[in-house]
């Protein structure tokens, strides 16, 4: 399901933001400090939809999945990367865990324009320029990396130096960051196969029509572990490795113009400094971070 949600995010955005295009989406970040934010919460000046409480949205009704949430799909356990991060941000702003309230927001409607009944939404939402037209985003809480998925039997599993990577036939879905990554960073010598849907690209991979596809690490992890399997559910594919991030990231989503984004960015910066984010990532996102690193030839 994790992978499917990511598919939706790719499709819905149509054009994901290209590397370097995503800038900070709030003007308040530069000057706001975490101390100022804690003070304004205490004085009741922090702009929250429900006074004294942090209302956090996620796609509760469609199910929440590991490793982003706990095993039972309940967001209020503080288990899983996104749940734990939401509580960490609240705590950093001085909000106690019992004052963190969860609310349901479907993935597809989250980045639609209009007023929101939550302070922020945390749901593996990729930041794109399109979406940033109608909603605001926090700074990155997870940098999405592109990874190579291939059949276990393919030569690319063993031979994937920067020069060797050029010699394979790649396939990918039209309009995706992965396709862009192939063209701009891997620059293969053979024509890339461009499919209308990711499912078709996966079918081509399974049929041996392409050597590899490039998708973000979480999607690729799901593909290799659960999607590309034989008739006995045994995985046929493997995640060969992942490339350095080119700027695509997940951000917390806010109603357009919500000034709270400044304090949340301050909290994210503070948690990064204190090493909290890094330890949460290693605690929960190990299946992604442990994917071997690949280096393409830099342009």
């Amino acid at each position, binding site marked *: 399901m994790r992978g499917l949600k990511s598919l939706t995010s790719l499709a819905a955005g*149509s*054009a994901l933001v290209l590397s370097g295009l995503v800038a900070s989406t709030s003007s308040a970040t530069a000057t706001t400090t975490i101390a100022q934010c804690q003070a304004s919460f205490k004085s009741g000046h922090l702009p929250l939809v429900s006074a004294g409480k942090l209302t956090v949205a996620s796609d509760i009704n469609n199910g929440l999945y590991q490793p982003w949430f706990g095993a039972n799909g309940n967001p209020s356990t503080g288990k899983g990367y996104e749940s734990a991060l939401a509580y960490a941000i609240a705590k950093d702003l001085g909000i106690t865990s019992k004052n963190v309230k969860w609310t349901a927001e479907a993935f597809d409607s989250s980045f639609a324009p209009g007023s929101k009944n939550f302070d922020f939404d945390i749901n593996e939402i990729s930041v794109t320029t399109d979406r940033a037209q109608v909603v605001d985003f926090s700074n990155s809480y997870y940098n999405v990396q592109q990874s190579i998925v291939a059949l276990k039997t393919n030569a690319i599993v063993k031979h994937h130096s920067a020069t060797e990577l050029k010699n394979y036939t790649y*396939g990918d879905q*039209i*309009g995706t960051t992965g*396709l*862009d990554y192939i*063209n*701009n960073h891997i620059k293969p010598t053979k*024509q*890339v*196969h*461009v*499919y*209308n849907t990711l499912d*078709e*690209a996966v*079918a*081509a991979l*399974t*049929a*041996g*029509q*392409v050597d590899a596809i490039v998708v973000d690490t979480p999607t690729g992890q799901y593909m290799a572990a659960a999607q590309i399997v034989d008739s006995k559910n045994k995985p046929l594919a493997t995640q060969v490795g992942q490339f350095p991030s080119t700027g695509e990231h997940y951000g917390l989503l806010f109603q357009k113009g919500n000034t709270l984004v400044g304090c949340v960015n301050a909290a994210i910066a503070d948690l990064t400094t204190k090493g909290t984010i890094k330890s949460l990532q290693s605690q929960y996102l190990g299946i992604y971070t442990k994917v071997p690193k690949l280096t393409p030839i830099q342009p």
Partner: protein
Amino acid sequence: MGRRAAVASSLSSALIVGLVVWFFWRAPNGANVRHFFLDPHSFWINLTGDPSRSLFSILRCFETNVWMFMLCEVLVLIFGLGLAWLRLSRTPILAPLRVASAIYTDVFRGIPIILVLFAVGYGVPGMQAGWISQRTPITYACATLVITYSAYVAEVYRAGMNSVPNGQVMAAKSLGLSDVQTMRRVILPQAIRNVIPPLLNDFISLQKDTALVGTLGIVEANQAAHVFGSMEFNYTGYTVAALLFLALTIPMTRYTDHLIAKDRRRRLAGGAA
């Protein structure tokens, strides 16, 4: 049809074209639509391509459509003829093949080509049955077009052969021509002449259906336009692809009409050959 009629028809044509252009220009959202489909800058990028933005040159991609079409057309003409011939054969030994040919044409005329494309393009390589499963997507795409269009063209041939009067067959046989000679020298030349217009229609469809093979990941003109559309939110690429297709189909239509007219003149005038 005198001068007055010519003037009247030119005037009415100009009026109709003018009305269409006017409507297109003055429609409430006309400017947006024009930008969406006819943006000059996008037009140029679509022609030349821009590798740094993963944008393909539709002109280069269209080469794929052209050679696919030309190769498939020849193969379709041959396979279609074979199918029609089998279906019309009266030799008892060929009876099972006659039935098979009838089933084949019914089946492949009845299945949307995109489904055949999926079955061949993903099914055959997925079987991992050695050589036949290790072809390129473009090979499977061509195979699909040939499989499907042979069925259409076989029916066209068959209609053409049936349109040749039985007396022609009788006359050929009474001269001692064999079945093959009768087909080759008497039936086919007349049948093909009768079916050039419907054959041409099928070929124009075939040309256009080369735009479907993007389903197998092949970046031909339509898929290249699709890539542009999804990256830039602009459909000018489709306009470019459409113009390229027109540039191919219109001369072909004209040329065939010319051939038909020339043949008619030759027969009426007699003797020049």
